[in-house]
Every structure is written in structure tokens, then in C-alpha cells.
């Protein structure tokens, strides 16, 4: 590993390129810097690998005493890898294009003119943090990122004084008269002490305690502070640009709000998002962009998502689709790129993939649309939504199926663990698809029906059913209730999804059913 030298300095890329010149294929100006960083990382990793190897040999000689030191040696290597990853993330952020709306541009200008912090609020993924980095990249200004936490306090934003280290040094007989070497400046302290103008990003200020923003007011106003231990005053030569973000998890104190320039960033409209996508992925095709955005906003509108997808997810999604040569979005391919929770994925695409564009429909209905055999199992009593009829447990146990018994008032749902069987609601299961019975459990379907354990089956039919009430209607389906209060759907193709109810059968009927030999492949023959 070499010390940084003049030889290692990078030369600017495309130095002669001026605005308005004939456009050439876009060159990522950060690519050379990234390449150098990777080389540096690889070089360092080799050194650490050698050190760890040596540490392992020594640790074996040292026995128990060596284990802690070996752990330390390994940890240093991991920290270096983290430094490298953090650097790459910073380069990404500093290089990312940012579509600055005219309103935000004006607000930013006002904050700079007044020399006041800019407070940005908005839901996650609206580009609050990205703005600070993009501005830093645009202006070539260093950025200091202070991430607020529940434990953050104003003092550590300015500086901390390492009393313990000074005491240790004193015990070792070292000279401790230079107090400055025990002062560690915090993010705000570094921003004020910097010899050049910097951007100070105080991110997610609403995560810190309520007093935290107020405690910063004085220093943010004065742009200076005293280090009590040394008596030194740190005063900004160049007033930093302060950008503070909040996800509005809590209201911020009034005095703090008064001293900032406030702006709420709304989630980008489809037109704005289209511009954002184009700025990041200039070669995106018109059709892909249009259909992907259409689907993206439908998904965002779906009720009950734990984390609706935001800007970074749509960018990733379109990049993946483009890489696969997709020219038009149908359904939701690669849902994992858009949705970060399994429950959300199931909500949007159904537990088994193929999506019939039924955002807002329940999972059981989506399973019917996929052609699955969907049954509701008989409950223990008419008042019980979660607990199945007790004979179900014995049937499954005797037939060798794995299952989870219902418990804790529905918090542990009853579930059947078999290949191709999906729980799509309370006591409701997609058991198999008649098109591919071998991939599911047609035998179980017959066994359950034979024992009278199926209370109803969701089916798709051509015969119309009359709506008594309508609850929801969109371009994919109409949902409502029939005269008996049963939920019914009409799909855009004009088909009806209804629940066919089964009453308790006579024992003789059950007997007959259970003795019938079921051949799941008979339809195919």
C-alpha cells in the first residue's frame, strides 16, 4: 500500500468538452475514479488477507490470548471493505442526475440568499437526501452527511472531548498539554471549521429527540461555537449550505421551523417521474417507460402496502426490464425490484406469480383468475374465522401432510405446508391448478370435499350474477355483493367470480365420495 502521492492524482476526464459541443456517446466521468478506487480496494484486500493469514498462525501460537487480537485483525479488514462500499455509495450519489423542479429551485435559491438552513419534508423516496448530494456534485462542494438518530445530541454534532484518552496518555507519562489533540469535531463542527464552503446535510432530523433541532439553533444562527476545554472559538469562514431533511415522523419545534426555509416535496407526478427516469436512463424506450409508469402508479395506489415503491425502485425496475429486453410492461415482472416485503409482493402479484393486473383484488380472487382450485375450509364454528373444524387436523395428520395449527386468535394462521398449496386467506387455500394437477394437491382437494371439510369454493363462471351492492369498480374488475350478501366479482372479460357454498353432506354421500377413485389426470386423457 502506498501513501497518496502526486502520481496518484487523477486527471479530469473529457477536459476539452464544452457545453453545446457536438454530442458524443455519454461517458460517465466518475468511471475512472471508480476504477481507481476498485484497484485501491483490491490492493488493500490483498494486504489484509496476508495479515489475517499471519494473524491466524500467531493466534494458534498464542492460544486464548490470540483470539481477541485475531478478531481485531479481521475486523479491520471488514471496516476497510465498509469504507470502500461507503465511498462507492457516495460517488453514486454525487454523480446521480437530479430533476430540480422550478419550485424547489426557487426555494433553494431563497435559502442560499438568506443563509438559512433549507428544511425539506416529504415521504421517503422523494429525493430529499438526493438533492443535497446532487447539489454537491453540481457545485463540486464537499458534503458532510450527519445522520440523525434517536440518540443524537447537539453537542456531538459540534465536538466531543476525549477525556478517557487524555487520562490514559497521562498514565503512560505522555505529554497531555496539547488539548486540541483530544478534540474531535462533529459534523457541524467540521462544516464550520472547513476552509471552504461545504454542504452540511442533517438527514432525518425527525428521528432525533425533540430538543435536538432546537439545541442546534444558536450555532446554526451564529455559525460559530466555543470549545470550552480549549477556549478556542470555531467560526465559519464560509457559511455552509445547510440542508435538513425530515420524513415528518414527528412535528418539529416552532422556533426551529421559524429559522429555516421550509419546503414540502410532494411525490413526483407521472410527468415528473417520467422526466426523472429519462434523466437517469436516457435510452429508455417510450413504450416501456409509459407502461412501466402506468403499472407503478397503480401499485402505489393499492391499499395496505407496507412500503409503496418509490423513485429508486422504479429506476431499478426499468433498468432490469430494459436489460432483459422488455419493451412493454404487462403484469408485474420482477416484483422483488419494486416491493421490499413478501406480504406486499403477495398482495400485488399473488403468492404464486402470474399477475392478472388485479390490484385491489384479494389473493383468493387472484388465485381463481390464475385458474387455481380455491377452497374455503369449514371453520370450527360459525363464529370462528381462523380455527378449522377439528377433524381437518386428524385428516391431515393421517394423510401425512405437514401443517400449522391455528393459534393466538388468528395471529398464527392455520396453514398447510405442501408443494403447490398456497394459503390465500383465512382458512382459504389454492390447492392446485387443473391445467397442471401434478404440481399441486388434487388428492387433498378430493379428500377434503369427501370429508365435508370444504364449506365453499371460489369459481369463475360465465353465467351472470346480479349485483345487489357495488363496493369497488376499476378498469380490471367490479366487486360487490349478491342478494345473499356473498362477495362477487365481475372481471373485465365479463366473467363472474362467485363462492359456491357447500352444505353439510349426508354421511352416505361422504362415504360414496371418499370411495370414488380420483384420477387427477382424467381431464387430460
Amino acid at each position, binding site marked *: 500500500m502506498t501513501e497518496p502521492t502526486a502520481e496518484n492524482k487523477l486527471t479530469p*476526464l473529457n477536459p476539452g468538452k464544452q457545453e453545446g459541443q457536438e454530442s458524443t456517446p455519454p461517458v460517465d*466521468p466518475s468511471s475512472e*475514479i471508480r476504477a481507481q478506487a476498485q484497484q*485501491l480496494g483490491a490492493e488493500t484486500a490483498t494486504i489484509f488477507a496476508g*495479515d489475517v493469514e499471519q494473524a491466524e498462525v*500467531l493466534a494458534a501460537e498464542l492460544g486464548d490470548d490470540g483470539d481477541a487480537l485475531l478478531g481485531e485483525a479481521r475486523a479491520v479488514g471488514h471496516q476497510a471493505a465498509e469504507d470502500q462500499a461507503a465511498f462507492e455509495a457516495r460517488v453514486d450519489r454525487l454523480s446521480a442526475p437530479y*430533476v430540480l423542479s422550478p419550485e424547489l429551485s426557487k426555494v433553494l435559491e431563497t435559502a442560499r440568499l438568506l443563509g438559512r438552513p433549507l428544511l425539506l419534508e416529504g415521504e421517503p423516496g422523494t429525493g430529499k437526501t438526493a438533492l443535497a448530494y446532487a447539489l454537491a456534485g453540481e*457545485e463540486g462542494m464537499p458534503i458532510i452527511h450527519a445522520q440523525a438518530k434517536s440518540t443524537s445530541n447537539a453537542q456531538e454534532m459540534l465536538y466531543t472531548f476525549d477525556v478517557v484518552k487524555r487520562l490514559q496518555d497521562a498514565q503512560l507519562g505522555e505529554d497531555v498539554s496539547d488539548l486540541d489533540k483530544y478534540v474531535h469535531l462533529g459534523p457541524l463542527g467540521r462544516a464550520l471549521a472547513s476552509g471552504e464552503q461545504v454542504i452540511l446535510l442533517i438527514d432525518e432530523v425527525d428521528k432525533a429527540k425533540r430538543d435536538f433541532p432546537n439545541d442546534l439553533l444558536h450555532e446554526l444562527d451564529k455559525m460559530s461555537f466555543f470549545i470550552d476545554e480549549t477556549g478556542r472559538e470555531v467560526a465559519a469562514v464560509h457559511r455552509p449550505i445547510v440542508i435538513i431533511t425530515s420524513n415528518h415522523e414527528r412535528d418539529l419545534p416552532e422556533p426551529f421551523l421559524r429559522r429555516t426555509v421550509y419546503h414540502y416535496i410532494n411525490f413526483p407526478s407521472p410527468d415528473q417521474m417520467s422526466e426523472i427516469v429519462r434523466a437517469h436512463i436516457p435510452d429508455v424506450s417510450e413504450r416501456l417507460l409509459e407502461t412501466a409508469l402506468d403499472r407503478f402508479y397503480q401499485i402505489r395506489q393499492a391499499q395496505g402496502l407496507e412500503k409503496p415503491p418509490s423513485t429508486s425502485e422504479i429506476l431499478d425496475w426499468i433498468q432490469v426490464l430494459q436489460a432483459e429486453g422488455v419493451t412493454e410492461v404487462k403484469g408485474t415482472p420482477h416484483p422483488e425490484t419494486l416491493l421490499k416485503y413478501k406480504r406486499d409482493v403477495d398482495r400485488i402479484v399473488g403468492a404464486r406469480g402470474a399477475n392478472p393486473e388485479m390490484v385491489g383484488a384479494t389473493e383468493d380472487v387472484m388465485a381463481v383468475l390464475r385458474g387455481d382450485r380455491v377452497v374455503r375450509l369449514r371453520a370450527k364454528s360459525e363464529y370462528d374465522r381462523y380455527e378449522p373444524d377439528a377433524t381437518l387436523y386428524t385428516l391431515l395428520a393421517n394423510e401425512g401432510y405437514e401443517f400449522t395449527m391455528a393459534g393466538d386468535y388468528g395471529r398464527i394462521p392455520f396453514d398447510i405446508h405442501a408443494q403447490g398449496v398456497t394459503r390465500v386467506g383465512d382458512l382459504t387455500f389454492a390447492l392446485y391448478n387443473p391445467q397442471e394437477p401434478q404440481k399441486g394437491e388434487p388428492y387433498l382437494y378430493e379428500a377434503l370435499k369427501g370429508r365435508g371439510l370444504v364449506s365453499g369454493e371460489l369459481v369463475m363462471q360465465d353465467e351472470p350474477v346480479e349485483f345487489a351492492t357495488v363496493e369497488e369498480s376499476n378498469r380490471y374488475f367490479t366487486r360487490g355483493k349478491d342478494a345473499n350478501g356473498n362477495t362477487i366479482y365481475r372481471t373485465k372479460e365479463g366473467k363472474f367470480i362467485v363462492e359456491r357454498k357447500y352444505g353439510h353432506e349426508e354421511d352416505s354421500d361422504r362415504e360414496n365420495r371418499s370411495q370414488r377413485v380420483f384420477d387427477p389426470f382424467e381431464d387430460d386423457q
Partner: protein
Amino acid sequence: MSAHILNKNGSEKRILLLQKELALLQEQLNERVLQSHKIIRNMQKLADQKKVDSIKSKLAHNSTI
């Protein structure tokens, strides 16, 4: 008024900023390497000390016999 795109083109200013970031990374990694070498040196010292102690104890044992 239309939106303005920040960071649209690779500017000289940004490249200089990224170079500074790279220099900082290099500094950080150098620091880590020094830290790692220091740990190895300490381990080496301890291992040497252990060997010396072991020889001393053997010698002490032999002299008592």
C-alpha cells in the same frame, strides 16, 4: 418554467470533488492498513514473549533439578 437537471453533464468541478473523495478513501485505507500491521506486530511481540517465557521456565526447571 421547466425543471432543471443537476449533474446532467460531467463537470470539471464534480471530477475534482470525486478526486478529493478518492484521496480521502486512500487516506482511510492507509490508516486501516497501519492499524492492521500494528495488530500483527503486537501479536508477534506477544508470541516472542511467550517463547522467551517458555525457555526461561524450562531453564529454571532444569536448574532446580
